[in-house]
């Protein structure tokens, strides 16, 4: 899913007729001060990171003067919220809240239809409210054919615990426009928490908008990059990997860097390895087996759904472009994927990346082909001479994830002893 930053989400809501605070995005103290002076004081300064619990982590400040804005901007820009660096801040008017409400539209898989979530007790504690007193978060499924016209929104609000007639009149248009946003932009979730009930009417004090990954191409106007949700801005390699599925929907190539700069691996005292799997379950199992052996997968990758060899060729190039790696594992789950095509893509990439050796890698690589055409896949490596590499191990369907991880450890140790490379 593609999660929008708060400022992007608010821009979307504003376009769809929902009031949002006046403000602007700043990347420097001077820019923040200029925006604050334009909109007038007091202002809120909010770190733009894709993480929850931002307020509690000190990511939201308030300021009544230009100097306070500068100080808040200085404190936030470059700081880290839940491990995510703050590169931009939203400076916007501070709202005079009378009450806080919660409004959301999302998909309910059990009902197979959209659902409206609504509470007159919104705010940062909404999750606790939902847990401790579920009745205070009202749920109403929406008939997707009927949509959410004004009379349906009013009926929902009439049934919402604690909603007055005035609330119904004020919130019905917001609910209609929120649902319109959800449908227009193919959202998985559109949430306002809190919706500030002010003397001037309801205003979205925050916004969370998650767009369905598969619908990003329908909305070029949003300027989104099709990368995996990682709770942070995508890395360059993730953006590059995201283009692979752009025009070709035969199979998928999911790629997320788990430790882009290698710092976590160093901190843990592990050995960084690149990773690719067919199937997320096999991927997680193989990762679980690797870590206790002293290795750390610096990326997650899932190339399943029978991707073309052309896709495998590209994603392998991306995976092997990660710096610091001391090995590479490919593990397929037992699936119907045509693994000889998978192997051709990998072999084509290896031959291009290691031309001096005819595709034989200079770091240990283990390939566990398990599933349809697995013998043919191993044969492809043999046909191209890569199977003869001292640093390549090819395994078949008779091994499990643990055995694959152990075989990789043995191979890596042999490589380290032979080459004298530090482990």
């Amino acid at each position, binding site marked *: 899913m593609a999660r929008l930053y708060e400022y992007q989400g608010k821009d979307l809501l504003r376009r769809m007729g929902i009031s949002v605070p006046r403000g602007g995005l700043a990347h420097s103290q001077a820019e923040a001060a200029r925006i604050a002076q334009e909109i007038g004081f007091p202002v809120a300064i909010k770190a733009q990171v894709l993480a929850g619990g931002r307020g509690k982590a000190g990511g939201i400040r308030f300021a009544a003067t230009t100097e306070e804005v500068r100080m808040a901007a200085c404190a936030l820009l470059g700081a880290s919220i839940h491990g995510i660096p703050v590169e931009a801040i939203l400076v916007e008017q501070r709202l005079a809240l009378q009450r806080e409400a919660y409004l959301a539209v999302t998909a309910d898989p059990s009902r197979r239809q959209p659902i409206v979530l609504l509470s007159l007790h919104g705010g940062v504690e909404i999750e606790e409210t939902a847990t401790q007193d579920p009745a205070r978060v009202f749920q109403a499924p929406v008939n997707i054919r009927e949509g959410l016209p004004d009379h349906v929104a009013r009926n929902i609000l009439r049934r919402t615990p604690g909603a007055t007639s005035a609330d119904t009149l004020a919130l019905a248009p917001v609910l209609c426009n929120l649902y319109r946003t959800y449908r227009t932009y193919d959202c998985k979730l559109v949430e306002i928490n809190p919706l500030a009930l002010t003397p001037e009417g309801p205003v979205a004090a925050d916004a969370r908008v998650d767009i369905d990954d598969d619908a990003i191409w329908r909305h070029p106007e949003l300027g989104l990059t099709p990368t995996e949700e990682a709770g942070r801005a995508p890395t*360059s*390699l993730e*953006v*590059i990997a995201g*283009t*692979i599925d*752009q*025009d*070709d929907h*035969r199979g998928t190539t999911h790629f997320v860097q788990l430790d882009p700069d290698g710092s976590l691996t160093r901190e843990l005292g592990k050995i960084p390895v690149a990773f690719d799997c067919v199937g997320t379950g096999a991927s997680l199992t193989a990762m679980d087996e690797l870590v206790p052996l002293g290795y750390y997968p610096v990326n997650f990758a899932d190339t399943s759904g029978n991707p*073309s*060899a*052309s*896709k495998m*060729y*590209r994603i392998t*190039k*991306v995976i*092997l*472009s*990660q*710096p*610091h*790696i001391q090995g590479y594992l490919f593990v397929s789950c037992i699936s119907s994927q045509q693994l*000889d*095509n998978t192997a*051709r*893509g990998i*072999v*084509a990439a290896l*031959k291009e*990346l*290691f031309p001096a050796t005819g595709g034989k*890698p*200079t*770091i240990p690589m283990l390939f566990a082909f398990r599933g349809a055409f697995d013998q043919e896949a191993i044969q*492809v490596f043999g*046909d*191209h001479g890569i199977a003869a590499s001292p640093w390549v191990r090819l395994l078949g369907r008779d091994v499990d994830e643990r055995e694959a991880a152990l075989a990789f450890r043995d191979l890596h140790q042999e490589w380290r002893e032979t080459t004298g490379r530090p482990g």
Partner: protein
Amino acid sequence: MILAFEVLSGGTLTIDTTACPTCESKACATVCAEQSPGPVLVIGQDGRPRLKPTLTEVKRGVCTECLGCLLDCEVHGKNAVRFHVPLPGLEAFVASEEAAGRVPVYRK
């Protein structure tokens, strides 16, 4: 003589068919015939590969991009097939990483 065609991913397959009449294996067509939904490359009367479907059909995805022609021609044929598929930004990324001292393993 060059045979070139675009495929669904945005890539282009190019075959220099100059040496193909003397190729005994015809490996490109052999491997292609094994692919579903049937061969894209067939051998013409002049001994050179040609497209069986139209360029439009190939571009729409009839070619499964198995890369069999590329690899098998290299090993069993005349090494006449080239495949170029865009991966925007990768070269620039690698160059910037190298400049910062983070060299990918395949460039060491």
